[in-house]
């Protein structure tokens, strides 16, 4: 049984690769700067955010954060990766209805493709992060490489969620709108531009700690910004959220996938 799955995946891995490269080709076709936009876009977004938080919303930015620019950029990049890749994954199965009605392809390829595309994009935008770190004269720690762990776990977590959303969206288009609202709420609870401690509210702190996004972002900041190693608890929490969500996603997807063709 498992062997069949592996064979199937190996046979279609080139398709996965081709679909991702198509995404890139189409995204940057006819733009002069091309792939450079993957770096420029987050850089400019962060510049805008930084200016806003230093002028208009100066009261809202977290206190006691030594390098606010880097703190903000990390939160932004990771959260946007999660939001964009899950949103793309959500409509991926639906958007390929034409194809799925005509040939047999393992259907999970499409959410997986979108998460990979998002991940590659996110890796590009880390060039923007490095640029911000250089500009602000932040220290570069060797532990920066450990940041890959929370990032990859976040990708697995997003894949699980993306599979659930993709399956649900086939049957109920409402999910698309609900997810947009939900991620906006989630963003405010992810401590992107503040620290949970600054409010002195234990309940709120506890609530934020339950947010897996906050855990991933914090683990990433610890390694990249503060030069710390990941604690055992952090390693465990990151992996647990990712694996539970992936298992759930695969379960939901497998239960429903045979009916996709009839509803698209």
């Amino acid at each position, binding site marked *: 049984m498992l062997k069949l799955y592996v064979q199937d995946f190996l*046979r*279609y891995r*080139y*398709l996965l*690769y*081709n*679909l991702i490269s*198509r995404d890139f*080709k*189409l995204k940057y*076709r006819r733009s002069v700067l091309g792939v450079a936009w993957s770096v420029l876009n987050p850089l400019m977004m962060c510049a805008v955010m930084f200016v806003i938080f230093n002028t208009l919303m100066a009261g809202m930015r977290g206190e006691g954060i030594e390098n606010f620019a880097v703190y903000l950029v990390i939160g932004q990049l990771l959260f946007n990766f999660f939001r964009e890749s899950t949103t793309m994954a959500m409509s991926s199965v639906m958007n390929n209805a*034409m*194809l*799925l*009605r*005509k*040939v*047999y*392809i393992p259907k999970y390829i499409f959410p997986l493709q979108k998460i990979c595309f998002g991940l590659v994009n996110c890796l590009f935008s880390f060039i923007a992060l490095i640029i911000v770190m250089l500009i602000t004269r932040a220290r570069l720690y060797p532990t920066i490489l450990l940041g890959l762990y929370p990032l990859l776990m976040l990708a697995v977590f997003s894949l699980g969620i993306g599979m659930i959303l993709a399956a649900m969206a086939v049957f*109920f*288009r*409402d*999910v698309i709108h609900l997810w947009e609202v939900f991620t906006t709420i989630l963003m405010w609870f992810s401590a992107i531009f503040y620290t949970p401690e600054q409010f002195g509210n234990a309940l709120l702190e506890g609530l934020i700690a339950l947010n897996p996004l906050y855990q991933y972002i914090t683990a990433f900041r610890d390694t990249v910004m503060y030069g710390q190693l990941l604690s055992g608890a952090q390693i465990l929490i990151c992996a647990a959220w990712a694996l539970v969500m992936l298992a759930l996603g695969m379960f939901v997807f497998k239960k429903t996938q*045979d009916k996709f*063709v*009839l509803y698209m």
Partner: protein
Amino acid sequence: MQQPIIEVNNVSMRFNLAKEKSESLKEYFLQLVKGKLRFDEFFALKDVSLSVQPGDFYGLIGLNGSGKSTLLKVISGVYKPSSGSCKVRGTVAPLIELGAGFDMDLTARENIYLNGTVLGFSPKYIDAHFEEIVEFSELRDFLDVPLKNYSSGMVARLAFAVATITKPDVLIADEILAVGDFLFQEKCEQRMQKLMSGGTTVILVSHSIEQIERMCNKVAWLEHGRIKMNGPTEEVCEAYKQTTREDDKI
């Protein structure tokens, strides 16, 4: 007797023809509460059994809406039957609605690779057969043109060329020979004959009864989702033509 290469056992395919298709959660729950969540069931296939021997050239005939294409999709794995089972021993190359997986914004060259991997080929394999594809489709001068600028005949040629570079165990063809000009149709037919002589089993759907008579050795006749008749080409085609003529008289 050899093991059949395709075994279709009592396959039924049920579609929910939801008249009030609930595409939103609100509607769904409203209908659920009102007890209105029922579907008009429609059986595209009812209790169909078929067994195909290796090397057969099997034709499927029947009027529009008799379930021919549904049966092909069950065999190629696109649909999972509502009941019954379908077993295929070997690789399947579906030539159903050619060009699935073409992206109109990409060039022909890029599409050859994309479509090739959709069909499960490796890039190496496509590399090795790239010349052959270009040669067969006669589109060398247009390789770097986006597909949206192609005519439908050109797209069909490219699709046929990509889909047939493989040597599949089973080739499934749904009225594909109706594409392109007559010269290209001849070329397609020749290529299918060549695949056949290499031991490939072919299942062909066509509305052209002459084509079926010329190419197939066995024919199944579908009517309203059931197999009405199944056997050697002459018998089935004769009976099929008979009824069609009777219908004409009325």
